[in-house]
């Protein structure tokens, strides 16, 4: 029996078995950001320890960076956190992509961009969306701050081996259906906790055809389905994306590429579970509740607690609808929005802005809607500028911002106010996620966000933008 990519990577990074039965796993690449690292450096100093592999540790700032004027954090706590990461990187000799580097951005955008993210490696970061890097065939997962300390000190962590679930999506996605819809659909089917204890392997011809950026969108939201990591097997697209990037060994590239490809799951690999999904069943998907698995097709109605099959389900629908202030049993289309947010590590890459730019020309954001577009990194921002994308967004009535996490979790000044409803390309719709304790979030693909911004309400982008088979991209 062959091995899955997960098993190959796990086995090649296993240092040993700890007394409690867990594996001591070597972390090839450690990514850090300003929010979850300062406390870990504090613990490290308290213990009198050093960073074991500073050359395998990479830092950037993203969560609290203001997106209007990047280097002017309005509040002193944010400034203190930025100072802390700068000092920690200086003290311990860690590469730091700061605001002046031209490479700063959301940590999950920066890693791939720089070619730091590579197939067959293990990647850890004190951030639950680290699975994004799995798009390259890496085993990448979020860790807590104590584990950030462990990685800094030893380049290893104690971890329970995961099971592997292969999720196959075969067939053709319909026009107007994007990678975001695929993952929202998967989470809807398997549940927000369906992936606990699993690594997800995304396979099948839909993923084969996806660009690297689309694969990142899918892997990014693995944690929303409960899976700590998710990956796509490396292939020719992975290799082509990485070739020439700064942190790739470009002198010996062919050998490197061959080694990378060898990590792909064997044809006869064992999987603990296999789920098959037909691409044709996936519709543009939006959330209606306060958990990412509360998804429905844009053409469906908001659930009604009366149709719940268990008391728990009824209570949870009621709780969600009370918070979201949405009418039970009514169509989700036509629900008025206040804010449209385009960005985040899920959908803040060049392809996302290019795709939206194609459709918003000649349209205007509705008068009562605040729409902001936030590139995921300074490099994405520069690419957009070179292609004239910011002008297109501004002409349509979007605010065009500088790189950062922005309104994904609103640790910077970009926040919802009161119970504003936001159409968002980010990954979480939890209560209060976007900065206001009563703020409301509806997750969807970037093109659907743009459509909602223009109509001022949740709407089917396929109709607004006439996404016929001929005009749509896969």
């Amino acid at each position, binding site marked *: 029996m062959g091995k899955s990519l997960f098993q190959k990577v796990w086995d090649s990074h296993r240092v*040993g078995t700890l007394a*409690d039965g867990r594996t001591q796993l070597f972390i090839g690449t450690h990514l850090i950001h300003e929010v979850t690292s300062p406390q870990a450096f504090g613990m490290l100093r308290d213990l009198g320890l050093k960073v074991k592999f500073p050359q395998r540790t990479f830092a950037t700032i993203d969560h609290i960076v203001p997106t209007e004027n990047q280097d002017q954090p309005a509040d002193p706590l944010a400034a203190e956190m930025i100072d802390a990461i700068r000092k920690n990187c200086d003290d311990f000799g860690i590469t730091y992509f700061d605001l002046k580097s031209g490479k700063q951005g959301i940590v999950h955008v920066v890693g791939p961009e720089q070619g730091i993210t590579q197939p067959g490696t293990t990647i850890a970061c004190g951030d*639950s969306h680290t699975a994004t890097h799995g798009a390259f065939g890496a085993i990448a997962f979020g860790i807590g701050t104590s584990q950030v300390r462990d990685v800094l000190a030893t380049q290893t962590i104690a971890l329970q081996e995961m099971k592997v679930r292969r999720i196959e999506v075969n067939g053709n996605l319909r026009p107007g259906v994007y990678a975001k819809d695929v993952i929202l659909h998967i989470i809807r089917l398997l549940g*927000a906790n369906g992936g606990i204890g699993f690594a997800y392997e995304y396979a099948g011809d839909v993923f084969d055809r996806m660009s690297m950026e689309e694969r990142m969108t899918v892997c990014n939201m693995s944690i929303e389905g409960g899976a*700590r990591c998710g990956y796509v097997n490396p292939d020719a697209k992975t290799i082509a994306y990485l070739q020439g990037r700064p942190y790739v060994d470009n002198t010996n590239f062919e050998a*490197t590429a061959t080694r990378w490809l060898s990590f792909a799951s064997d044809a006869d690999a064992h999987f603990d579970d296999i789920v098959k999904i037909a691409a044709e069943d996936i519709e543009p998907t939006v959330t209606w509740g306060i958990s990412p698995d509360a998804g429905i097709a844009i053409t469906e109605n908001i659930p009604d607690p009366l149709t719940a099959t268990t008391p728990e389900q009824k209570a949870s629908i009621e709780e969600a609808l009370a918070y979201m202030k949405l009418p039970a049993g009514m169509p989700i289309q036509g629900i008025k929005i206040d804010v449209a947010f385009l960005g985040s590590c899920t959908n803040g890459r060049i392809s996302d802005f290019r795709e939206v730019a194609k459709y918003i020309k000649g349209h205007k954001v509705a008068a009562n809607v605040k729409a902001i577009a936030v590139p995921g990194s300074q490099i994405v921002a520069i690419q957009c500028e070179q292609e004239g994308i910011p002008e297109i967004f501004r002409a349509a009535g979007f605010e065009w911002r500088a790189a950062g996490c922005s309104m994904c*979790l609103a*640790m910077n000044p970009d926040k919802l106010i009161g119970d504003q409803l936001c159409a968002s390309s980010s990954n979480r719709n939890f209560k209060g*996620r976007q900065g206001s304790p009563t703020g409301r979030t509806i997750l969807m693909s970037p093109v659907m966000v743009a459509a909602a911004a223009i109509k001022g309400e949740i709407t089917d982008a396929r109709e607004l933008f006439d996404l016929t088979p001929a005009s749509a991209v896969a």
Partner: protein
Amino acid sequence: MALDPVKQVSGTGVFIPGADIDTDRIIPARFMKCVTFDGLGEFAFYDVRFDSETGAKTNHPLNDERFKDASILIAGVNFGCGSSREHAPQSLRKYGFNAVIAESFAEIFYGNSTTLAMPCVMAKADDIAALRAAVESNPTTEITVDVEALRVRTSSGLDFAVKMPESAREALVSGRWDPIQELLDNEAAISDRAKALHYV
């Protein structure tokens, strides 16, 4: 590093209703602007404990005088889902919780809690309901989470089995809940592994 074994945790409990209580709810992101974890306790569940407009206390169980000394948190399914922020278990720990009993937990939260010596045990829905009824009818009900035997007992006479991954149980009862010393001890094996990896 000698750590205290965590074999049993006792105290009074408080039930926090709702499924999928995420770490944003446990500690809203704006309180993550900190360079140490000290002082996070007062912000646990902040946005559901205080009205966002008036700042007045809500009827959240943590605001209920009867539960003010509770040190065991009781919850439903998928507790601690969402963001990996260790700020969440840290804030619960600093608030004064020493154990969590729930139907199920999110994985990252679980690991983070174990590393802070805060055992999280999984109980059946019926047992959680009975426990809830017990603490709500008598908030002084003493609850013991027996990590060693994987049982929960109460002064009101409940006694039921709970689950916990063996690795976590073993780590707690043997005082190895913080793995850093053991990780450091394997220095030689770490170097060997690093040498064997092409990219390191």
